[in-house]
């Protein structure tokens, strides 16, 4: 018993905090690649996975209790490396562990700026930021434009992550296409009105976020994402594009997302470096470059658009073709 305790005490400990739940495809992609890469470390590691389960539009109370539970787990487990996936975990959990002696933080899937989370000044943080593959999206829009300038509308729910994506989308030079300002809506009835309105003037509709729509203006209940996707694709005159792993699966037409596999694998590589003696402050953060393609050729064709065959091949290879 003492031997086991000593063995555990001396084994490196890594704790992974996921913002969402274990069934969410994005989280699954992060975790799968993280685990696969970490196996190559060569020494036994004690790992613990903690899921904050904050998908959709979590209430203030849900965020508080999830944060308290995660922080308690970290304090109890005392990991040498704390891995945080996505902005929610970074916002709610990491602040009290910044600059904590004996603990390094590795982040991945972060869309916000490093300064927003205090990662730029802390001496124990490194990781990989997530960035929307804007060039790839631009190329896809161009491919569908067939030489003519298109009008691109934008819609999003009221969640913070959606704001980040919308901001990144708007920062791109879409010339010769015309980008409309992004409309933010909180609930599904307002969403429906906005989709119909934008459809009247835009050819393409970029959906920056849709998983946190309330069913009513005053309620807490969140509309299932597939319900939003199916309705929007069926009723929008504009072709829907986005940058979420579940986008096409939820009923939309085209998605090019950053790769959770690259994010998870990089997090594991950084973890291994730190466990081998490197300091987190000596490893500069990087930005992800790899991306996933998901398309539904039928839904794209319904809007009178076509993409070169390579997109279908890429989507089929990724197992995301609908």
């Amino acid at each position, binding site marked *: 018993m003492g031997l086991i305790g000593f063995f*555990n005490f001396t084994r490196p400990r890594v704790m992974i905090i996921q913002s969402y739940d274990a069934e969410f495809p994005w989280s699954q992609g992060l975790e799968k690649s993280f685990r696969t890469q970490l196996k190559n470390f060569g020494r036994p590691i004690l790992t613990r996975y903690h899921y904050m389960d904050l998908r959709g539009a979590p209430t203030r109370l849900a965020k508080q209790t999830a944060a308290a539970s995660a922080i308690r787990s970290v304090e*109890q487990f005392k990991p040498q490396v704390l891995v945080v996936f996505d902005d929610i975990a970074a916002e709610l959990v990491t602040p009290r562990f910044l600059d904590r002696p004996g603990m390094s933080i590795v982040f991945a899937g972060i869309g916000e700026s490093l300064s927003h989370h205090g990662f730029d000044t802390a001496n124990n943080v490194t990781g990989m930021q997530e960035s929307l593959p804007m060039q790839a999206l631009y190329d896809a829009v161009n491919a569908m434009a067939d030489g003519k300038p298109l009008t691109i509308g934008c819609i999003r729910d009221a969640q913070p992550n959606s704001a980040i994506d919308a901001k990144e989308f708007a920062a791109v030079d879409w010339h010769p296409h015309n980008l409309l300002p992004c409309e933010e809506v909180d609930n599904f009835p307002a969403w429906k009105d906005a989709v119909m309105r934008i459809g009247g003037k835009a050819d393409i509709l970029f959906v920056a976020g849709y998983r946190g729509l309330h069913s009513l203006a005053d309620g807490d209940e969140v509309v299932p994402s597939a319900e939003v996707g199916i309705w929007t694709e069926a009723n929008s005159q504009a072709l829907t594009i986005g940058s979420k792993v579940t986008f096409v699966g939820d009923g939309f037409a085209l998605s090019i997302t950053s790769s959770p596999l690259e994010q998870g694998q990089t997090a594991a590589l950084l973890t291994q470096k730190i466990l081998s003696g490197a300091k987190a402050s000596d490893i500069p953060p990087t930005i992800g470059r790899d991306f996933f393609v998901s398309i539904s050729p039928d839904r794209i064709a319904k809007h009178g658009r076509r993409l070169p065959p390579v997109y279908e091949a890429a989507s089929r290879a990724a197992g995301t073709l609908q």
Partner: protein
Amino acid sequence: MQEKVLPSAGILDRIRAEPLFASFALQSFSKLFDGAQTHYFNAGETIAKAATPADGLWLSLGEHLALSDYQGGDLGLASVMGEEAIAGHASYMRTAVATSDGAQIRIPRQTLQDVLAEEPALTKRAHNALLGSFGGSVAPATAKIIDNTNQKAFQKHFLGWAAALISPILVLLMGSVMSWDLPNTIFISILCATVCMWVFSLVDEFVPPLFAVAAMLLVDLAPTSVVLSGFASSGLILFVAVYVLGGVMVATGLSYRLIVLLRTILPDTAFWHGFSLVISGYALSPSMPSANARLALLLPFYRVYCSNPNIKVGSRAHTRLAAAVFCGSMNMSPMFLTSKSANLIILAMLSTQLQDEFQGMFWFVAALVCAAVMTVGHFVLEQIFFAGPPLPVAGNEKLRLQASLLGPLRTDEWFALSALALFIFGALTTSWHHVALPWIGGFILVALLLYGLVSKKNFQQYVDWPMVFFLLSLQGITSTMDYLHIVDQLKPLVRAAAAIVNEEFWRVVLVELVVVSIVRLALPITAGAVVSVILLLPLAEATGVNPWVVGFIAAMFSDMWFMPYQSSNYAQLRGAQPKAEMFDEPLFLRYNLATCAVRLLAVFASIPYWQYLGLA
């Protein structure tokens, strides 16, 4: 003159006519008949001699056996001799001599032992027969109480079985008419039958969920790995380990010694007597998951305190002691993970990360305010309900002698104490060694087995195996519910409840109180707590409250009872003294009602604490 050889029918008739074997099951008669032998004796021949091995029971056709004692004193004539073989004596205490020629029937000792296992009343009858033989008179038969409850029980059972058989059929019909999803319909129909069995107490508490698991496997409702997921859970090992540890502490006498020691340390006044009962119960709680077992251990001390000549039967002082022993055994039930079986089951229903969080001492840390309020509340209620003039008590010379009589700790007790200390130390230091509590418990279990402190029989006896299967079956039911996404179907109800709650945690408490109170009207404590948690966990998810809080509050409220039939512990306390020496029951029941209010107060008082901990 008797027959030289008895026909088989004659042997059977004689066995069936024997008063020792009155009202036996047919199977028992069959076994007795199977083992019966006949031997021929002439008149005056000795059939069995005193001080020789009692290797069988002798039956004669009529009173043809002349009995005498060791010294040859006449004990009269009898038609049966050899009750010593049933009563467990190694040799005959009497000599039997045949008074006429004839065959005598002999039933070997081994056959009698085989039947004894199924007919335990036989031992008492044999003892009575021996006493009557030596005493020279037969004890008067006790008057048979005409019991009408059998009729009522039959009606209740009939109704219950009818409900258990008909309700699933109705659900299936309703499901097909309203086009419900077939797997969900089948699940609900199985659940209906299960709940009927609980509500009408048709079978023991652990049987209905076992039936549900068997039914789900039979109709292939979910993969086997889902339905039997309980067997793969760490909760099973912790469960078994804690039961064995508690059993070892009782069997080695360690628990008894600790309570005696406590009595010698504390002052010998009426208040401290009650206090020692409370504290003893509290000290037993973390290592004994059964309140009934804790109460059983404390009751002898309760009776000793009650035997104080200054305490009148039925007085406030007497009832105060009853309240103290009840409080000591019950109050801490929800406060430790291992102090109640339902707590272990509730933990197994939470996610893995919540199990990691609450399986150490954190459960108690989170329950601290409740524990404090319940304890202070008991002593306040003591003053309100049982206040009276201080009573003179006997000196504690007797206690000191009793403690010294036990002598130093024996090796077995040292081992048990070490096992307990390791368990507690392991629970307190999980953040250092990172070994989960179930595996610490498993290690302790193996150590106790290897040391030999737990034999195969002990392993069967110490562990409440029906409760283990109850745990495993309930886990199977909840896993199947997750697999079928049953809870998603109840979303409108859950949303309505979440809307009522509206992030106000005190409303969660009230919703729980209502649900648990209704469920407990029909179900016993463990099933009631667990079913309440199953119903209320989706509310935790919908409102963002930590699911543990919902489970803990259900455990707190399920211990509340208003009608005596709802509490097996109260029945146990009542049975601890004869009816003529009962404490003041109406006063106790009023006290109990007040403790329900204290329980509610304890939960409300914990709200700010839980908010501080980030649990609600």
